């Protein structure tokens, strides 16, 4: 029996009597088709309602607020102000600075996490004793609450009591003011975030490495390819879509950076680590400027969507190319 026949047989076993298995959906009676569509939508409805309630409606309402002045006593838009909030936001040096700070943080943290993540994944996928324990240990940073991670690292980096400076002291290096210097504060933030999220990249990378086809590597070996040539000509091209997929997932996570910055530096010193989400939070919930905060959030959403779209297109290109 052919595969097609098997499928049809299964189909006829579950299809209603009025809809023979050999009848294509378009040729079914209209009532049956409507019933079928209705049934599907009925099952989808709870998920759709939840999705609309928790995602779409809030999102559109935020956009509405971004064009309005919010009445704090009723928490409703008091009057439409057109593009005023957006103009205010684009003239706000603090917001523009926070975008820049976020950009610097992303430019430093993401490549570092990708390189470390894939490097560690290669090591963990080689055969050696104890790698299972190390794999399990690697998951710990990911499950630590971000605020706790920020707080603990703040203690570790303390110039007087911190463990990091104690270790540096053992090799004769004077205490470093990790969080008080504007440049070092950003470096510290990147280090904390890297400690926290590299294991996530390791997980994705491990899955990608394990799914690589063995026969290709055997062929490369037969052809006399060395370790580096195999990495450059076989492994990396095959892994490119996985690398970019991991990058996109981390990008979407990293752009939301908020709690570690809040716990470790509160955006300081000055505005050195004032990432955009922290700035928006302060504007909204300390400054009570919900209109401008919503405009900022909408702009960040637009920028994030645009860049994510570009990354996805790049991913598709890489998949097709290799």
């Amino acid at each position, binding site marked *: 029996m052919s595969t097609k026949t098997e499928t049809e047989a299964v189909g006829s076993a579950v299809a209603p009597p009025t809809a023979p298995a050999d009848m294509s959906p378009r040729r079914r009676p209209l009532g049956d088709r409507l019933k079928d569509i209705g049934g599907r939508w009925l099952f989808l409805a709870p998920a759709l309602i939840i999705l609309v*309630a*928790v*995602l779409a*409606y*809030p*999102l*559109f*309402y*935020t*956009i509405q*607020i971004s064009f309005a002045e*919010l009445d*704090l*006593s*009723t*928490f*409703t838009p008091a009057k439409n102000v057109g593009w005023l909030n957006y103009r*205010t936001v684009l003239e706000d040096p*603090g917001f523009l600075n926070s975008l820049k700070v976020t950009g610097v943080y992303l430019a430093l943290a993401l490549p570092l996490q990708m390189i470390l993540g894939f490097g560690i994944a290669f090591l963990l996928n080689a055969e050696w004793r104890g790698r299972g324990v190390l794999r399990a240990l690697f998951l710990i940073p990911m499950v630590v609450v971000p605020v706790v991670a920020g707080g603990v690292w*703040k203690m570790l980096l*303390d*110039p*007087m009591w*911190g463990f990091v400076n104690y270790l540096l002291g053992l090799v004769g290096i004077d*205490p470093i*003011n990790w*969080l*008080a*210097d*504007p440049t070092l504060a950003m470096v510290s933030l990147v280090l904390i975030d890297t400690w926290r999220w590299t294991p996530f990249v390791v997980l994705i990378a491990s899955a990608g490495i394990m799914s690589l086809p063995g026969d290709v590597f055997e062929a490369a070996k037969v052809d006399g390819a060395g370790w580096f040539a195999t990495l450059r000509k076989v492994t990396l091209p095959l892994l490119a879509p996985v690398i970019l997929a991991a990058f996109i997932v981390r990008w979407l996570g990293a752009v*939301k950076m*908020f709690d570690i910055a*809040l716990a470790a*530096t*509160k*955006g*300081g*010193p*000055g*505005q*050195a680590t*004032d990432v*955009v*989400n922290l700035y*928006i*939070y*302060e504007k*909204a*919930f*300390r*400054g*009570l*400027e*919900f209109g401008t*905060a*919503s405009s900022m*959030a*909408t702009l*960040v*959403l637009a920028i994030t969507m645009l860049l994510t779209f570009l990354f996805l297109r790049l991913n598709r290109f890489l998949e097709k190319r290799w």
Partner: protein
Amino acid sequence: MRSLPRATRGTTRRAVLAGGLAATVALSLAACGSGDDGEVTGGGVGTAEKPVSIRMIANDAFARQWQEQMVPEFNKLYPHIKVTIDGVPYGDLLAKEMLELTAPDPTYDIVIADDPWIPQLAKTGGLADLKGDLGKYTKSDYDWDDFNTGPLAAGEWKGKQYGVPLRSNVLLMFYNKTLYSKAGLAAPTPELTWQQYLEQAPKLVRDTNGDGKPDAWAVGTYWTKDPLTPTIWQTILNSNGGQLLDENNKPTFNTPEGVAALQTHIDLLKYAPPGAATYQFNEPLEAFRQGKTATMFMWGSVYKGTAIDPKTTTLKPEEVGIQVMPVGTASAGAHRGMWTGAVAKKSKQAEAAWTLLQWLSSKEGEKWHANTLGVFPARKSTLSSTPEQAWLTPVFKAIADGYVAIDKGKMWRPKLPESDAIQQILATQHSLAVSGQVTAAQALKNAEDEVNKLLKSKGY
């Protein structure tokens, strides 16, 4: 942190706003409803057959202590009022209260607010006027005039009394008598001036173990980017006769005195432990409690944990002195930081809620509070009474001196709904100056411009 019960009414636009921000910037907040100006519901104080329940949202720093010790004491008098207190971290408290008060059916009957929050919370229309809305439930012997004016004023806005002082707090100077003595210096007195303090400070930075490196320093206080950090600078400014804003809410801090005050705050770092530029609340406290710093400019309410409680401090009560901050050209320094209790206007148990606040802020309740938990009082009668515990005597003196300084120098944060936003601007510019990214003068110029812009946009 204990989890908070959610408001039970349907999703509304406020929830949508919070959710929208959450969806776009990964901030999670839930809220609902809109305000109304309806009459306050009394709801009684309960009976054996029909007890009433009230719920309070408070700072988690003291919520558990209240739940475990204050509530049982209150229930001795009012056994039919069940009180549940939810503790929320300080950083999240204002936002949660803002969202809560505008909900159609608030979860909380009582909100505990930090000093500058009352205008912001009252502006939502969600707070009951204790003298107006709830005046009929006020006991005849509740003596409003017995409160010191500073603490009571923290709960007032636009002529209405929205809150009563429950945990008074004052920015004060702590000093370690042992370290002063070892440095060959006389212990400070309330007459100590900033000039004298700064002359003594280098002598308080010492190498006590002979390894060639300092291991004891002169001072610990706030320096990090935090809305509370500028209160130190503000107090120095106030004690030199300066003010943040004038009567018309125009900034008046960008003056030579303001710059000098900010520079003094920054200069204190020279005599502070390594890494002190990131100090906020806990770090200077820890350094002082471990005998690493000779002085600390900090909220006085930490005195018990700093000088008395062996679980939290290495110091002995006789080692720790407390007094007002050094004297400027106009007065000694102090800064107001009251925790006030307010009743949600939409509470269905407003009478029971106000009964609890009345008891806790009454002459009897306040004395119990101070003597049992070491909480700072706001009433003149309490401060003039003889405390049950000897260690409270010098503390009462420092608080009383602090209230005088506060009244004289108008030492509080801006009394506007935009107070936190202003403090945030000051915190950012202050932090830029502390980290050397701008000069003190440039920081105040920037802050003045930003505050002007903010207040102008709000119609001032």
